[in-house]
């Protein structure tokens, strides 16, 4: 038997048919949809008079356009007319085909990639597809997840399969203890900065090493989520005891005997000794510090105690990025004043992220020049944060405690940056205009964003004591 990577095992176990030497017909165990990348797929389905092949293996969530005003969820309404029409259209499409929808007033509504794992829908060994690039998140649980386009959404609706080009394999090993003040967000920002915005383009990336093994399932989700910013087609972490415990806690519908049988099978979900990777990087966790972006691409990032590259090291893209972001070569990011703080997104809005941010701000106040908001990843995350008392930490500090959604990660709703506003953001993309036309984004971890909210400028969270 040829030694296979974890990725190859997942593809093989979901191959309905080989199409040619590059392509397979890949089976999707689960398919997730949102309101903005699915309408034309439903339209295509209607035009050909096709049915949804497996409606019970589909899920809809209104998350991209939903407002996050702190109104009670039961009274939630979308005030932007076109967005309301898009959500209503989504409701009609899901109803028509018998697809379960987490709608605007559903208390369990949230960001699709936060909701699916916490409902227990994502299990090791699955293939999960969604019309959203951050579907790579599910690799954290040993499931093959990746983003697809709307034409492909139609294909999955009609057939529960995808015509899929099998990709190459990259392995990224990270060993050692994560230094004080760093999180899994810093790990992935470091990796993206090291290998570049297209360093893993078109490849399935498998993470391993003692650093990864020591991370929680949620922390791993942050890593796999943002691996797509290096161009990766998928991110994977072989399931282990941490994964099994997470799935057991959330997939509460699985009878104990089925769970035991599943775990026996999940233990095989790892790359064989001698499996061939096209590329292999090894990093030392000791080299990772709190990371912050200085430019307009996620790989334009430095450790907080480093300096923006000097003028003679800048290429045309970097010069353009610095011009947009309004910073100088060879400068430190520390002390850069900010106007907004955004804690949220499918990268960093789970309960552990909120706890990390709350730990930094407990008993302190947001700087008077800053507007800071927390957007929990889902109704369940919000509920749990309230049960744990985190809500008081945020509100007492002066944060806005809002309702779940994608919100200002991509600003499709009414949360956005004004021209020239600078934001410390726990999101995944610092593209020009992503958070609002002319908005200036600095990606960072939840503790770093929280510390920036208190200081009113970008700071090194390691130098901020909890009570100064």
């Amino acid at each position, binding site marked *: 038997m040829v030694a296979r990577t974890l990725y190859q095992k997942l593809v093989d176990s979901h191959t309905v048919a080989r199409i*040619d030497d590059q392509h397979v017909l890949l*089976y999707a165990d689960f398919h997730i949809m949102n309101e903005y990348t699915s309408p*034309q797929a439903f339209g295509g389905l209607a035009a050909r008079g096709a049915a949804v092949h497996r409606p*019970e293996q589909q899920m809809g969530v209104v998350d991209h356009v939903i407002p996050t005003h702190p109104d009670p969820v039961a009274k939630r309404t979308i005030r932007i007319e076109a967005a309301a029409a898009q959500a209503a259209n989504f409701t009609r499409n899901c109803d028509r085909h018998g697809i379960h929808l987490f709608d605007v007033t559903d208390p369990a509504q949230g960001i699709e990639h936060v909701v699916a794992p916490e409902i*227990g829908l994502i299990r090791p060994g699955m293939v999960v597809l969604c019309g959203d690039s951050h579907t790579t998140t599910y690799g954290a649980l040993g499931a093959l997840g990746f983003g697809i386009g709307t034409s492909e959404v139609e294909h999955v609706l*009609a057939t529960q399969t995808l015509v899929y080009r099998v990709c190459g394999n990259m392995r990224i090993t990270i060993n050692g203890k994560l230094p004080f003040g760093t999180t899994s967000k810093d790990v992935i920002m470091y990796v993206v900065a090291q290998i570049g*915005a297209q360093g893993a383009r078109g490849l399935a990336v498998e993470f391993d090493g003692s650093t990864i093994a020591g991370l929680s399932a949620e922390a791993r989700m942050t890593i796999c989520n943002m691996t797509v910013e290096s161009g990766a087609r998928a991110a994977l972490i072989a399931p282990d005891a941490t994964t099994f415990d997470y799935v057991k806690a959330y997939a509460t519908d699985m009878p104990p005997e089925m769970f035991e049988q599943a775990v026996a099978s999940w233990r095989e979900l790892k790359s064989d000794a001698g499996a061939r990777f096209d590329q292999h990087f090894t990093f030392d966790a000791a080299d990772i510090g709190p990371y912050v972006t200085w430019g307009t691409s996620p790989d334009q990032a430095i450790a907080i105690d480093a300096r923006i590259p000097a003028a003679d090291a800048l290429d045309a893209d970097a010069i353009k990025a610095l011009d947009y972001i309004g910073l100088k070569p060879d400068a430190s990011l520390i002390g850069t004043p900010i106007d907004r703080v955004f804690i949220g997104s499918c990268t960093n809005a789970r309960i552990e992220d909120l706890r990390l941010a709350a730990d930094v701000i407990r008993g302190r106040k947001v700087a008077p020049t800053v507007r800071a908001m927390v957007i929990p990843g889902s109704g369940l995350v919000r509920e749990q944060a309230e049960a744990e008392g985190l809500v008081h930490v945020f509100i007492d500090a002066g944060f806005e405690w809002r309702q779940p959604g994608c919100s200002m990660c991509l*600003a499709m709703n009414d949360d956005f940056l004004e021209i020239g506003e600078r934001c410390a953001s726990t999101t995944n993309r610092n593209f020009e205009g992503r958070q609002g036309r002319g908005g200036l984004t600095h990606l960072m971890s939840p503790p770093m964003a929280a510390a920036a909210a208190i200081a009113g400028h970008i700071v090194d969270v390691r130098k901020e004591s909890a009570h100064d």
Partner: protein
Amino acid sequence: MTDFSIIQSVGAPLPLNNLDTDQIMPKQFLLGIDKSGLAHGVLHDLRFDAFEVPRANFVLNQPAYSGANILVAGSNFGCGSSREHAVWGLMQIGIRAVIAASFGEIFYFNAANNRLLLVTLPEDAVSELMREISDPASSGLVIDVAREVVISASGKEYGFSLPARQKSMYLEGLDMVGATLKQLPQIEAFEQAHWASNPWMKVDLPTMRNFLPSWAGSLV
């Protein structure tokens, strides 16, 4: 009828690397429920200033390039968000092909599904083409899909290779959904075997909704 085998047009140079789909089709144009009306949104913030006035220095606003059907772009074109709106929009302003050293992975397949031709050439070939078309007098390009060559105004030929499947999808306009629907019996046979050996992979969301974690019990 459109001839898909040859594209002959001015090529517009867009020398930006990592031009993401947020920039190709910004969020404010994503609220529709069909594919129409996206022309104004394409590369919006590069084409128009904050007052919606066209930026005279942007290549597609210059008379010599405004009718271009071919873009010659920087590497990793179309990275980022999965939004297929980026492809629909480019086609709605008349773009039929993009030439670059590399493309975002999801964008690549979105383009194939809409018959937007993506031509991958080596970095130095793209730079050379970019230099040649930057002079409006030599901005004409021919892409011969059957022969898999790009021919510049000076007559230089740049060979590229399209994977067989992408080539036939492009030339013949294959209906993939229709083709796979014919395989439904095979898919159903796969499902039965797959669920028999991995029963935990068969989720039933409507039923599972009743099994939300206990601390969420007060919600539902």
